[in-house]
């Protein structure tokens, strides 16, 4: 059995090596990503001690289905995105290796403080990567907010420690289960805000617009898919599995999540720059996923999370590429851009439709499942909010897709001659990458059983009561 700590150690080691052998940085990065992706497949589930102390005293890595699934997708996406955008990496290879280590650590750790450390490592790499846009004020903003957020997280964590005397997640969750929830309000809130900065919950996410809005075809998909995915999974780990929320705080946080969903989608509706539309859509999706996690619907949340990050990887790659090569990502200026880039356009379209939750694509499977989940809680306002979000999201995404596919003025038949003259180019590697990703979304939608059974296994382990709409059965259960 391979110790999953290698997933953290190998990229970290390679990061140091890459400083020494600058000429081989990119090779080392690809190697590290490949090794990690390969290693994930061979991992055995279980708990692994670090340093020989047994929990709750020592630090342990927990590799359950949840973590395994997260590792699989995050490492896979990391590899794919690196391969797609090798030309964009430049000096960031070392940073990316550290980031990979940090991300894996986030998903694996079973200790709250250890999580803080990985959070900071990952965040620092994110600050550095965000600076590749040369818009330092946004990186600075991100840095201040990120640091403040993790400070608040640390604050909440230490309050928990002061009350319960433990930092081990499993141990804490046992102790907190019987605790008076009013004791938990402040620490939970602080932890929520701390993670909220990273997972883009509404009033804490002021940095997102500057950072995502200026991202290129490497940083964009990396942030919106890999980082966002890992952070949301961490959020789910903490709030769905460790910290029990009292009714008061739960209601407030649910409202905040729902607010994030609607506000994010509305903001996206009002934008015309593609990356801005997408970043607000990411915010909205985060709100949705957070809401699901807070409701205790781990399995649907994870499904929706994967749908979101797989789609966003495609969308941000194309959007970043547009901005990189044409200098603008305004939808108006780029109308008809897909007329000359059909394959990329098809991948973009599939990702967009999957994000909306259209049938035949994976997003539909996750949408149906999450609705089943929410209804099973006898919650009748939340699905309304979610569906409203879907309507708004569909509107701006379809508007965007139509704009990018069909050039032409109102009142005139759409014709290629109206298409943008901007020198848009999409490298073959990127096209192949996004085609692979969209194919995954398509297969997941056509044969949901295949992916779903793997998912549901972990979903069941996490939460026996979450209903699962099994597409294998005729017409579901």
């Amino acid at each position: 059995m391979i110790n999953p700590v290698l997933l953290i150690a190998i990229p970290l080691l390679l990061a140091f090596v890459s400083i020494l052998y600058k000429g081989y940085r990119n090779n080392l990065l690809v190697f590290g990503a490949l090794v990690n992706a390969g290693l994930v497949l061979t991992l055995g589930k279980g708990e692994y001690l670090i340093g020989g102390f047994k929990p709750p005293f020592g630090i342990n890595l927990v590799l359950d289905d949840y973590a395994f699934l997260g590792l699989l997708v995050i490492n896979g996406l990391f590899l794919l995105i690196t391969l797609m955008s090798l030309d964009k990496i430049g000096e960031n290879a070392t940073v990316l290796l550290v980031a990979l280590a940090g991300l894996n650590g986030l998903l694996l750790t079973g200790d709250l403080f250890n999580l803080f450390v990985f959070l900071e490592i990952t965040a620092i790499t994110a600050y550095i990567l965000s600076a590749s846009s040369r818009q330092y004020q946004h990186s600075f903003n991100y840095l201040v907010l990120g640091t403040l957020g993790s400070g608040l997280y640390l604050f909440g964590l230490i309050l928990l420690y002061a009350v319960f005397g433990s930092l081990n997640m499993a141990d804490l969750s046992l102790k907190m289960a019987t605790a008076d929830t009013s004791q938990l309000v402040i620490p939970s809130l602080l932890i929520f805000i701390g993670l909220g900065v990273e997972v883009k919950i509404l009033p804490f996410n002021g940095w997102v617009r500057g950072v995502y809005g200026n991202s290129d075809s490497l940083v964009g998909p990396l942030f919106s898919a890999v980082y966002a995915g890992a952070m949301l999974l961490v959020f789910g780990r903490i709030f769905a599995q460790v910290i029990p929320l009292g009714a008061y705080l739960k209601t407030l946080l649910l409202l905040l999540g729902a607010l994030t969903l609607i506000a994010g989608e509305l903001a996206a509706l009002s934008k015309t720059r593609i990356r801005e539309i997408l970043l607000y859509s990411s915010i909205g999706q985060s709100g949705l996923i957070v809401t699901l996690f807070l409701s205790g619907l781990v399995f649907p949340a994870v499904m929706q999370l994967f749908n979101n990050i797989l789609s966003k990887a495609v969308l941000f790659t194309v959007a970043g590429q547009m901005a990189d090569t044409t200098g603008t990502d305004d939808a108006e200026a780029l109308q008809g851009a897909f007329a000359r880039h059909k394959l990329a356009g098809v991948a973009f379209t599939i990702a967009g439709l999957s994000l909306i939750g259209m049938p035949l694509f994976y997003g539909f499977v996750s949408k149906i499942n999450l609705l089943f989940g929410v209804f099973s809680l006898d919650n009748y306002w939340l699905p309304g909010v979610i569906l409203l979000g879907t309507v708004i999201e569909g509107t701006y995404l379809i508007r965007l897709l139509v704009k990018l596919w069909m050039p032409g003025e109102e009142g005139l038949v759409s014709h290629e001659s109206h298409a943008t003259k901007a020198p848009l180019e999409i490298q073959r590697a990127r096209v192949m990458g996004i085609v692979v990703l969209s194919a995954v979304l398509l297969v997941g939608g056509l044969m949901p059983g295949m992916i779903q059974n793997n998912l549901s296994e972990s979903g069941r382990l996490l939460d026996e009561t979450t209903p699962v709409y099994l597409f294998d059965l005729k017409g579901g259960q």
Partner: protein
Amino acid sequence: MIQYAGILLILIGIYGLLTETNLIKIIVSLNVFELGLNVFIISVGFVREGVAPILTSVNNHSGLVFVDPLPQALVLTAIVIGLGTTALGLAFARRIYMKHGTLNIEEIGGGIND
């Protein structure tokens, strides 16, 4: 009592973050915030009359009250991380100054064309 000092520092730090427009001062505020946090963490582990949790030839009997060593360990880590972020923040501040010629955040602008 010491935890109140910590909380006060945290609040001062947040006040600084809210009001300061100078990048350097923002970083200083952030540091004050972290400092307060660290002080608070230490205070959590503090036990009145407690001794350092090290078994020595003097302190080796079961009647002893130790202070909690864990928060101290945590603070060490936090300080290191804080140092890293401060350094990075200063580096950003320098780059911003080179690009915009000012450290005042009001004068920099959003950089997003809307």
